């Protein structure tokens, strides 16, 4: 965990409102694990607080991290206007990331990764790690997006996945509907032993409940407004379903077992 001044390598347009940024931060890149995040600040900008972003991918050799973000408010608008060689203050890597369990995979079982909206971002690095850990048994990916304009995610995922199943809200690509609508087919075709999800809460809730009903180990990556990212401001806490503990999403998560977050 540290604050590192990083130089922007690229800051490109992926769709109407989604951008991808590569930042040169060798110390953070050397430590970052799938599911962890960074807090970013433009020291010459007009906003006060840092902004949290899940680490979309890491290139340790080059000392770079990839962020994929949706332009949603003042902070991200400002970020979208930055150009290569400009400096950003990056704090991280923060949080704990996904746990990787291999039980059931040796028998041909699979891990299902699910990403919704811009929550797909941290699942890229997660898919890369799984493909490295189990090269003969790559994860299946369920990609829940708004429309065909967001199919760019496939380019980042295809090398690390066995198959990408797409759902779009408007039916312009893949299955029309929400991610959960693709689950019956996926569960019938694959022996899914582990599920990891990052996306909107409402989407994760339905999928996590389904996973719990089916007895499939499931981890969810949470997001909530936070000011500090290190467990101090207490902006992002919630009460664990089973433990009753007050968890800090930034410090104790952002990844939690599904049953600690959602009611069965």
């Amino acid at each position: 965990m540290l604050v590192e001044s990083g130089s922007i390598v690229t800051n490109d347009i992926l769709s109407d409102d989604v951008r991808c940024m590569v930042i040169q931060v060798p110390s953070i890149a050397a430590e970052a694990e799938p599911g962890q995040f960074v807090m970013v600040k433009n020291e010459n900008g007009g906003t006060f607080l840092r902004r949290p972003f899940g680490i979309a991918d890491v290139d340790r050799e080059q000392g770079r991290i990839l962020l994929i973000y949706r332009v949603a408010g003042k902070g991200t608008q400002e970020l979208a206007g930055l150009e290569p060689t400009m400096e950003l203050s990056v704090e991280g890597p923060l949080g704990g990331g996904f746990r990787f369990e291999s039980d059931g995979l040796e028998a041909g079982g699979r891990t299902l990764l699910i990403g919704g909206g811009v929550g797909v971002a941290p699942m890229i690095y997660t898919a890369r790690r799984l493909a490295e850990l189990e090269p003969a048994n790559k994860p299946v990916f369920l990609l829940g997006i708004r429309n065909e304009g967001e199919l760019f995610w496939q380019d980042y995922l295809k090398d690390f996945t066995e198959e990408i199943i797409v759902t779009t809200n408007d039916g312009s690509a893949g299955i029309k509907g929400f991610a959960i609508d693709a689950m019956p087919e996926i569960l019938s075709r694959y022996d899914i032993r582990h599920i990891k999800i990052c996306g909107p809460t409402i989407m994760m809730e339905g999928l996590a409940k389904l996973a719990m009903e089916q007895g499939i180990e499931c981890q969810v990556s949470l997001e909530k407004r936070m000011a500090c990212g290190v467990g101090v401001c207490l902006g992002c806490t919630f009460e664990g379903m089973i433990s009753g503990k007050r968890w800090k999403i930034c410090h104790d998560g952002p990844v939690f077992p599904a049953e600690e977050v959602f009611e069965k």
Partner: protein
Amino acid sequence: MNFERLATDFAGIKMKTPVMGASGTFGFGIEYKDFLNLGDVGAIISKGLTPLPRSGNNGVRVAETPGGMLNCIGLENPGIDVFLRDILPKVRQEAPDTAFIANFSAGTVEDYGMMAAKLDVDGVDGVEVNISCPNVKEGGIVFGTDPRAAAAVTEAVKKNTKKPVIVKLSPNVTDITVMAKAVEEAGADAIALINTLTGMVIDIRTRRPLLGNITGGLSGPAVKPIAVRMVWQVAQAVKIPILGLGGITCGEDAVEFLLAGASAVAVGAENFVHPDAVVRVAEDIDAYLEAVGLKHVSELVGQVRI
């Protein structure tokens, strides 16, 4: 950093520098140990403690605002007993030589006294009495806006502890000097100001308040001129030392508070942005002292030229 130049005795609390981490923005200090040397921190002021554990308010609890932020955490904390049993020993282990000030509030005058008694233990160097939290109904601003209630709380705390007692005032009053004089007369050893200013943000798409608690406390650079003005006003009105805070992000900001009459300062929201801020501000003050040729930071206190 020249610690001889910076060493400060604040109402009997001995600190290596005059810069503290403000309550609610510095955890228990140990959360920041990867980012700064806790030994270089003037004092750690704890997250606000209460008699029982609190989970705080529901919904959105933090939001960026122009030049700062709003929060409505609602005093989430593990409660005084868990603090004394599990947290304080860890703090003393990680930061054995750093002054530690316990911030607390309660729902009744009696409970304020009880909290003070429980915190009158080794490892706690002083207490900061929170009578100014804008985000909870009980324990806080009710006592912070009525001079008689503030005095009653101060007396109850003083009666139950041998530690230096700092009373933290709310800026959400018509005349802050009235509150300052009331707690001074009631025996406070020092005054801290300002706590956050009550504010509100409305999401125009949903037409609902952005914060779960509707209103929240405003902090960050946006409040600094108000805080400096209030420190200056209170410095004219009382003799006890003042801990100045509100929007400090750098040494220059801190020097303003010292010139206005504060004997020590605390860094608040800026810790969220730059986790090494408490030490960096002390270094900046030291550089300023060097540049203007002063031998000790106390030579700045109250020296604004009117």
